[in-house]
């Protein structure tokens, strides 16, 4: 081996290398290979993250050099009514959106699992929105929500003599209207994951349960749901992070007045975007980012803890 040749002539380093057992050498080699992606990942991910923490303590506005301002940005954040509004909006997306989307996805998957007729086609229909660009979906929905004479839903409503609804133009209906589209867009993915989870449950359990005379409801509660738990945990975490980071559908559906009338649909990511790239207040935007990061971390850890295997 090449190493032998090197160690003969030189350096304590070579001798040190020789003293390692084969096992240790393997580990070192493994880490050497792993180091490449880790360094790369650390450079493009962790370095900017730490940089964001630093920027949040400065008044950097891109054009002028950054000055350290301590906790000023955080102080401003706490006293900014706009921030608390988007904070509330973001948690509304999370707390209402996640359970509804999981429930709907589970129901669809549960019944789709029993459908044999055109099963693949129906499944593809559910999955299709997930493959489409979020911006394109948002613009189609924007048209659907328009008032008469162009809007689809309002056109139908007015044919039946039901009063028009303002949808996106309203401070109360705007957020639910956007949430519906976000749930719909993510539904296909969740249905597929649930279907895979359902298929993974051995059919022998069901057969045994039926022989023992258990009803459908009991089978669902005692067998299906408990065995689906790993799938559910994954989807809860995945969907929560998605709702906490919601941006593209909101931005595209309300681009005239981003974040809806009076900021009624604005999530925290949109506020960060506007602070950073409309007002160029990078320090303040970084402080908001740090808060979002902390929330994401806490929510994810909490969910993993609550739904952990006992």
């Amino acid at each position: 081996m090449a190493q032998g040749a090197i160690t003969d002539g030189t350096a304590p380093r070579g001798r040190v290398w020789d003293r390692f057992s084969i096992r240790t050498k393997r580990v070192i080699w493994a880490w050497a290979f792993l180091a490449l992606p880790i360094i790369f990942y650390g450079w493009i991910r962790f370095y900017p993250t730490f940089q964001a923490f630093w920027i949040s303590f400065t008044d950097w506005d891109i054009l002028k050099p950054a000055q350290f301002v301590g906790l000023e940005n955080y102080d401003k954040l706490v006293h900014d009514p706009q921030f608390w509004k988007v904070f509330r909006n973001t948690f509304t997306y999370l707390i209402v959106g996640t359970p509804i989307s999981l429930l709907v996805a589970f129901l669809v998957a549960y019944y789709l699992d029993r459908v044999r007729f055109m099963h693949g086609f129906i499944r593809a229909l559910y999955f299709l929105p997930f493959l489409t660009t979020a911006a394109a979906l948002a613009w189609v929905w924007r048209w659907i929500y328009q008032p008469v004479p162009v809007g689809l839903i309002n056109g139908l409503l007015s044919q039946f003599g039901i009063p028009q609804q303002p949808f996106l133009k309203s401070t109360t209906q705007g957020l639910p209207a956007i949430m519906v589209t976000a749930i719909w867009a993510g539904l296909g993915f969740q249905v597929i994951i649930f279907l895979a989870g359902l298929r993974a449950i051995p059919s022998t359990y069901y057969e045994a349960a039926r022989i023992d005379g258990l009803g459908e409801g009991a089978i669902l509660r005692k067998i299906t749901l408990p065995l689906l738990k790993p799938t559910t945990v994954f989807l809860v975490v995945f969907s929560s992070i998605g709702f906490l980071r919601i941006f593209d559908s909101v931005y595209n559906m309300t681009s005239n007045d981003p974040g809806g009338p009076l900021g009624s649909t604005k999530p925290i990511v949109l506020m960060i975007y506007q602070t950073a790239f409309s007002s160029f207040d990078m320090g303040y935007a970084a402080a908001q980012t740090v808060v979002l990061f902390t929330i994401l971390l806490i929510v994810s850890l909490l969910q993993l803890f609550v739904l952990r295997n006992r």
Partner: protein
Amino acid sequence: MRNRFMLAGLAAGISLLTLGAAQAVEIEYWQYAYETRVTAMDQLIANFEKANPDITVKQTTFPYDDYQTRVIAAKAAGQGPDVLQLFYGWLDKFQSGGVLQPLSPTAFPHDAIEADFFPIVTAMKRGDDYYGLPTAVRSLALFYNKKLFEEAGLDPSKPPQTLDELVAAAVATAKHDDAGNLISEGITMDMAGQDHQWWREVLTRQFGGVPYSDDYRTVTYGQKGGAEALQFYTDLQNVQKVGQAGFMDEGQAAFRGGMAAMTIDGTFRLGSFKTIDQFEWGVTELPASADGTRSNYASYFANGIGASAQGEELAAAEKFLAYVSSPEAMQIWLDVVGELPARKSAAMTDANLADPILAPFLKALDYAHTTQFVDEAGQRQVAIDMANRVLLEGQSPADSVAEAATAEQAIIDAAAK
């Protein structure tokens, strides 16, 4: 010693090489993407390159929403354009951030600028220096759909001249379905479009107020005029029901689609409205108040020279800026984009003043005001929110205007810090 000679020779060679390169200096021009503006600039560049074969100009465009970010990011990276377009309201930010360099007074003498251009050019001056020159200026006017006027029994050659006539015409032309839903607007309501300028500089003055102190550092519309103006504006939707915020998304889209009889918009819309073939439309001055007070909002995009342009590039950039601010360029810009020439002599020609479409805009330049924004997007958002509080939450116009005045003052104060 020999080495030193060689170095000197090398240096001489390099400078010869760069001299050779100077025969074909390339400068970069940036503006935001808007079809007619890009077409017009392509024509200007072609003419300029024909007259100056040693200079090539590369035009780069970005979507409007992205444009400022790109300029600022390019400045941070030290790779800005040589000549760039900017809204007059961005000057504070661009100048203090070092994006622009002042125009040399030898290439662009101040007395000539002030004698030839409309007075609003002084909004490009900071201290003793000018930071840019406009090709075109823009003002607002009332566009009306002649077909809808005729259908409603109005005379399409007599558009409304006062606010009362405006409301009457809007009431006559608005259409509702059986359930009372608005299906065609009398007048568009779009605060995110030009309506915030109409409210700020026109309606507020017509209702007896002044929007800002003379230096635009103090908001004064909260004291007088603002609330009455907002009442008038929101009544169009709440009381007369002739317009609806968000109808067909944007006011200009509703007008274009033939679903609005009137809309208030600027010269920059002429180019795109010219392609309408379903109906004829006309333009008239913004309506006067009962006592005859007229006002308007004038603004412009100027071209400035990037801070990084040096040496031959700077010389080429100055030549290019001089050409795009020349009367010839202004005529091309007027023909292609529809915006008014920024030089008085090029604008106030007999042909332009006899033009039924251009005349209302030109007349407005006599009495127009130019708001000095510190954060155009932020200040516009204040106006959008102000109208929404009345239209959606039922707040009284007086309270909403007071809240807006506080919010806008905070933006101005923060920028001054």
